[in-house]
């Protein structure tokens, strides 16, 4: 875990450096490093490729909203809509009111609101307007599809190799993938889930491992189709952690529940304290999984972007001599982290499930 600690320290350090730099130069239309980084790290309804504002090139992704029936339109109608500035004492911002098929909707901080009388009504900095259910194919959703497609192609071709050739020594893609699959089974699933029961969970653990790994690595590619911070998005890690929670709870045996509601060896008088602690423990474990993956991947993206931003903060290409090697170093480190986090998530999930299905040894 020291590596992630180092990463966190580095990210905090770079942030402080960035803040110090930006605070120093407050003239003309300055480069807002926080906004730029957050824009890259967060989800969006477009996939920005290059350029600035309306001159830039983006892939406009489909917006799918449920608002008294499903409505589908291109996000171009939102991004190329009317820009409405909002005066704010701390930091002025603007929102976009959609046109054409997007009429009646506005986009603020990548969230879609229903407009009233063509504008948003603010309560402080937060709009009071209703939000339709947003099922849009956002940047992260597209990245999810691309990652899943890559995963399927790689895995199915591996599977096809064995179907064609039978139980022989692997060649080609199977030579690369098979050791990973066997590694997950032998080093992650088997040591944590004892006995023959482990076969039931191989599917889930292996899928989690490769899903996280592929999307982590895809996120490290700086250009389309990579670069989306999918595994650093709390929704994705929330879903994965939720899966682990559900699998753990539903495979928990009598022994597991006994340890929660009547921990052996604990005096009965302490049970009123122990039971709530144990119940909270059920949720804190997957919660930690969720936060760990999200924080590690987001931190990695932020560090790389911060290092690159040094060039733009100082408005001098010469800084590239410092920031590019550092960003390269962190990018290489992030490849390690991609594997490490996939391993950790899978390994800890297996550990929790293993604890839930373990038989009484006392």
């Amino acid at each position, binding site marked *: 875990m020291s590596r992630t600690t180092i990463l966190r320290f580095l990210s905090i350090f770079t942030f402080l450096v960035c803040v110090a730099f930006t605070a120093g130069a407050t003239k003309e239309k300055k480069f807002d490093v926080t906004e730029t980084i957050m824009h890259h790290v967060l*989800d969006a309804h477009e996939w920005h490729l290059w350029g600035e504002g309306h001159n830039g090139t983006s892939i406009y992704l489909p917006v799918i909203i449920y608002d008294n029936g499903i409505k589908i339109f291109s996000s171009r109608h939102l991004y190329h809509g009317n820009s409405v500035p909002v005066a704010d004492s701390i930091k002025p911002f603007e929102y976009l009111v959609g046109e054409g098929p997007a009429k009646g909707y506005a986009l603020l901080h990548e969230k879609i609101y229903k407009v009233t009388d063509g504008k948003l009504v603010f309560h402080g900095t937060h709009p009071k307007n209703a939000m339709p259910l947003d099922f849009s194919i956002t940047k992260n959703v597209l990245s999810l599809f691309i990652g899943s497609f890559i995963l399927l192609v790689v895995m199915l071709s591996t599977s096809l190799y064995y179907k064609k050739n039978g139980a022989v020594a692997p060649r080609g893609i199977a030579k690369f993938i098979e050791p990973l699959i066997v590694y997950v089974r032998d080093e992650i699933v088997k040591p944590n889930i004892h006995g023959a029961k482990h076969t039931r969970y191989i599917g889930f653990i292996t899928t989690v491992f490769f899903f996280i790994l592929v999307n982590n690595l895809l996120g490290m590619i700086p250009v389309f189709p990579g670069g989306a911070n999918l595994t650093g998005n709390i929704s994705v890690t929330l879903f994965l952690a939720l899966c682990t929670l559900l699998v753990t709870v539903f495979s928990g045996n009598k022994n597991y529940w006994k340890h929660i509601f009547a921990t052996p060896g604990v005096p009965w008088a302490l049970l009123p304290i122990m039971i709530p602690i144990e119940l909270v423990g059920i949720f804190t474990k997957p919660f930690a999984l969720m936060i760990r993956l999200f924080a590690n991947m987001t931190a990695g993206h932020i560090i790389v972007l911060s290092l690159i931003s040094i060039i733009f903060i100082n408005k001098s290409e010469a800084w590239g001599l410092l920031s590019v090697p550092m960003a390269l170093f962190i990018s290489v480190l992030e490849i390690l982290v991609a594997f490490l986090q996939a391993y950790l998530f899978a390994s800890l999930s297996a550990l929790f499930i293993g604890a839930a299905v373990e038989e009484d040894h006392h």
Partner: protein
Amino acid sequence: MDLVTPSFGLLFWTGITFCLLLLILAKFVWKPVLSAVNARSQKIDEALLEAEKARQEMKSLHAENERILKEARAERDAILKEAKEAGAKMIEDARDKSKVEGAKLIEAAKAAIGSERNAAIADMKAQIASFSVDIAEAIVKESLASDEKQKALASKMVEDIKLN
């Protein structure tokens, strides 16, 4: 705050995609690949076992060969020894026999030589006797050729008789 607020849409799509991935991968990839890996490892185990067995067999075969070779060698040695002994005996026998034969021959030769000599001696004796008679006759004829000589002889003989 946006960073830690889950969005419903992404959660929805992640859920669908992940569940589909789980179903497809578990059914069409993890299961067949792992069973292939298991089958292969079993095959390798069996092959190793077979190899070990073959090695043991080879070893025992080798030992058997060695034993047979040893036996054959021993047999050869025995045969050679026997043959040598037989040869020696044959030579010995032949020598003995030849000795006996030689002795016999020598004996026979000796006997023959003896008998030849006896015969020769007898013959010689007879010859000498006849020669003696001839000589005596000649001498007698000579000595009795004149009257005086006859007288002298007769006197001598008379003398001899007197002596007796």
